[in-house]
C-alpha cells in the first residue's frame, strides 16, 4: 500500500474511532467528527447541485441557447427569484408560489405513482392469489398456496381495518361515541398482529444493516492497526 492510501485509511480509521467513542459518552471527539462530516457533505452537495443541475439544466440553455430557450428559462428563473426573495422577512409571502408549485407537482407525481405503481398492482396480486389455476400450476402444494392466500387476505383486511378510524352509526350508550363498530374492532386486533410482525422484521433489518456497517468499520480499523504494526 502506497503512502497516500495509508494516509486515507488512517484518516478513515481515526474518524471511525472518533464516531465510535459515542458508545462511551457524548464527547468532544464525536462532535468534531460529526461536524466534519456535515461540513464536507454540505460543501459537496453545493458543488454537485451547481455541476449537475444549475449549470446543465438552467444556465446552459440561457448562455448557449436561442431566444426561445431563454424564454422558456424565464419560468424557472422567476420561480427561483421568488424563492430567494422569500428569504427576506419583508417578502416572505413570495416564496409561497414556487413552494406551492413544487408541492403540487410532487403530490401529483406521488399520487400517480402510488395508485398505478402500488395500490392497483398490489390489489391485483392479492386477487391473483385466489386464482385456482395458479394453485395447480405452481410449484408449491395447493394446500399451502390456499393457506398463503388466506393469510394474505387476513393480513390485508386486518391492517386496513386497524387504520379505519370510523365510529358507530347508531349510538345507544355514551361510550359508543368513542368506539368503533365491533367488526372493525375485531379485524383491527387481527391487523395489529400483522403490523407487529412487520415492524419486527423492519427492526431486525435495521439492526442487520447497522451491524454490517459496524463490521466494516471494525475490519478497517483492524487492518489499519495491522498495517501500522507491519502485519498488513
Amino acid at each position, binding site marked *: 500500500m502506497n503512502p497516500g492510501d495509508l494516509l486515507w485509511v488512517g484518516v478513515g480509521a481515526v474518524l471511525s474511532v472518533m464516531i*465510535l467513542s459515542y*458508545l*462511551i459518552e457524548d464527547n468532544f471527539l464525536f462532535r468534531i467528527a460529526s461536524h466534519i462530516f456535515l461540513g464536507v457533505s454540505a460543501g459537496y452537495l453545493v458543488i454537485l447541485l451547481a455541476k449537475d443541475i444549475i449549470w*446543465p439544466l438552467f444556465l*446552459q*440553455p440561457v448562455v448557449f441557447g436561442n431566444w426561445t430557450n431563454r424564454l422558456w428559462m424565464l419560468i424557472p428563473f422567476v420561480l427561483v427569484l421568488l424563492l430567494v426573495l422569500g428569504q427576506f422577512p419583508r417578502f416572505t409571502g413570495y416564496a409561497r408560489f414556487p413552494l406551492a408549485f413544487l408541492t403540487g407537482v410532487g403530490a401529483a407525481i406521488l399520487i400517480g405513482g402510488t395508485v*398505478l405503481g402500488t395500490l392497483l398492482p398490489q390489489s391485483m396480486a392479492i386477487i391473483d392469489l385466489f386464482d385456482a389455476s395458479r394453485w395447480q400450476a405452481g410449484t408449491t402444494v395447493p394446500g399451502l398456496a390456499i393457506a398463503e392466500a388466506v393469510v394474505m387476505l387476513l393480513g390485508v383486511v386486518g391492517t386496513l381495518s386497524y387504520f379505519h378510524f370510523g365510529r358507530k352509526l347508531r349510538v345507544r350508550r355514551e361510550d359508543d361515541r368513542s368506539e368503533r363498530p365491533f367488526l372493525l374492532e375485531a379485524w383491527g386486533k387481527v391487523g395489529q398482529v400483522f403490523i407487529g410482525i412487520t415492524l419486527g422484521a423492519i427492526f431486525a*433489518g435495521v439492526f*442487520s444493516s447497522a451491524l454490517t456497517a459496524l463490521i466494516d468499520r471494525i*475490519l478497517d480499523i483492524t487492518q489499519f492497526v495491522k498495517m501500522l504494526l507491519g502485519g498488513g
Partner: protein
Amino acid sequence: MAIIICPECGAKNALTASRCHQCDASLVEVEPVQPFNFEDSGHLPSAEEDLPGLLNALKNDEETQPPAEPDEEKTDDVDGVSEESVLEEDVPEWLLRIRQRAQEEKDALGPITQKISAAEASLLEENKEMQRQNFESWIRQIKKEAQDDEIDSIDAFVEEEMPEWLRKIRQSRETPETEEQEITPEDGEQTIPMPDWIGTRDVEPLNGQPKESDAEEESSQGLPEETIQVSTDSAVDEIPEEGSGVVSDVVQAIGPVLAVSPEEEIQADHLSAAIAAESMPKGGQEKGQKPRQRLQRILFNLGLILIMVLIAILGGRSQPSGDSLPPQNEAVIEWAQDLPASATILVVMDAQAGFYSEISMIAKPVFENVANIEREFFVLSSTPIGNLLFNRMINELELDTAISAQDLGYFPIAAYGAFGLGGDVSANWRIAHLPQSEKALPIADYDGIMILADSIVGAKAWVEQLSALMPDNQLYLFLTAQAGPMLLPYWDSGQVSGIISGISEAAGVEAALSQSSLIADRWQLYQIGIWLMLVVLIVSPFLVNHNGNTTKGKGGNEPG
C-alpha cells in the same frame, strides 16, 4: 329652585338645610346649584331653551349611528380598574354626550351645565381623597362578592382554558401551581412566577402600560429567576395591601390567557418541545448518570466491541451454501448470467455512504458477472454521493478493462427522477427546442434496471414510477436489510424481476456465483454480532431494572 348637593353622598338637599338628610354631612360651605331636570326642559329659562334642540340632535345622532364598539382604550381602563372609568359608569349616557359636545362647542354650555361641570370639577379636585376612599370601598365590596363565586369561576376557567403547552411546562417543572402564583407586593410591584418564554415578552400590567423588564432589579431583590414583575401604578397602587388579593386573582386570571396570541402559542409549543427534548436523556447518554451505572455501560459496550475485534482478527471464514436460494435471488443470478453481450443497463444509485459496505457486498457479485467492456451503463443518482459510490464499487472490482458508464446526473427527489425517466420527459424538452444537455435522460429500452437502495422510501419511489411508466423494463433490486422486507411484495406482484436483500441473501448469491470471498470474510463476524444482539436484548431489561431505573414508558394506552 336652587338645591344643595351633598359632597359626601350626592343627595339633593333643600337650600335651607345645614346637614345632609341622608348622610348627615355638613352642608355649610357648599354652594347651592340650580337643579336640572331633563324631563322638564321645557320649563328652563330662556337662555337654556336651545338645550332640547341640542339633545334632540344628539338623540338623532344616536339613532342614525350604529352602537359604537368599546374601544381598546376604554377596555383597558375597565380592566385596569381606572378611577375615571369607574366614575363615568355612574354618569348617564345623555350627559356624556353633552359633555362631549360641550368640549367641541364651548358656546353650547349654558349656565346650568357650567355650574354642574363646576360642581363636578370641584368634587373631583376637593374631594379626591373621599372619592378614593369610595373607590377602595367599592373594590372591597367587589372582593367580597367575588371571593365566593367569581374567584372560583375564574380559577375553574383558568384551569380549563389553560393551554396544553403551559400545563406541560408547569408539569415538567413539577412546581405546584399555588406556589407559582405567589405575589410579593413590594414598592408597588408584584412578582408573578411565569414560564421563561413569557418572561421574554412584554407583559401588559393592569393599568395597560407596558412594563419594562428589569432583570437587574429583579435579581437584586432576590426574586426567583422565573419571575416577571408587574407594575401596579395608577389606580391599583392606591389599593391598600389587603386589596392586593383581588389584583392577584385578576392577574392570575387574565395574565397568560389574554396575553398569548395563537402564533405565540405555537412558538411556545415548539419551544417547550425543544426544551423537553433537550432535557430528555439522549439514548442513555444523560450527564446525571450514576458513576457506577455509567461504568457498567462503558464496560459493556467496550466488551462487545472487543469480542467482535477479536473475532475479526482470529476468526476464520465460513459461508452459507448457495444451493437453496430464494426465488427472487435466483432470478437475479439467471438474469446476470443470460444477459446479452451488448446489453444496456441503467444503474440507479439511491444509497448513502454509510451503507456502502452492505450495498457493495450485495451488488458486487452480480456486477462481476455483468460488467464488461461491451455493455453500456447509465448511472443515475438520487443521493448526492451515488455516482461516487458507483465509481468506487467498479474500481474495487479490479476489472481487466474499464467499462463504459455514463453519468446521467443527480435527481434530489427520487420520484421526480423516476417520473422524468419513465414519463419520457426528454421528448417534451425537444419540443421546446432546448439544446440537448449531456445530462438528459436517454430514451431507451434497457436490458435491465438495477436499483441499489438503502431505504424503503427511495426504492419504493423508483419501483412505483418505473413499473407503471416503463412496464417492459426489468427491475432488479439490490437492497440493504432494512429496506428489504417492505419491498418484497413488489416481487410477489411481479413488478420487480428480482431482489437481493441484506448480507444474508448476498452471502448465498456470492456462494452460488463463486466469484469472491468478500462476504465469507465477514460472515462469521456477522453471525456473532447477531448472537450478541440477542444477548443484549435479553440482558438489557434486567440491567435497567437492576440499576433502579424506574422511568415508565410514555407510550401505550393507559387503562381506563
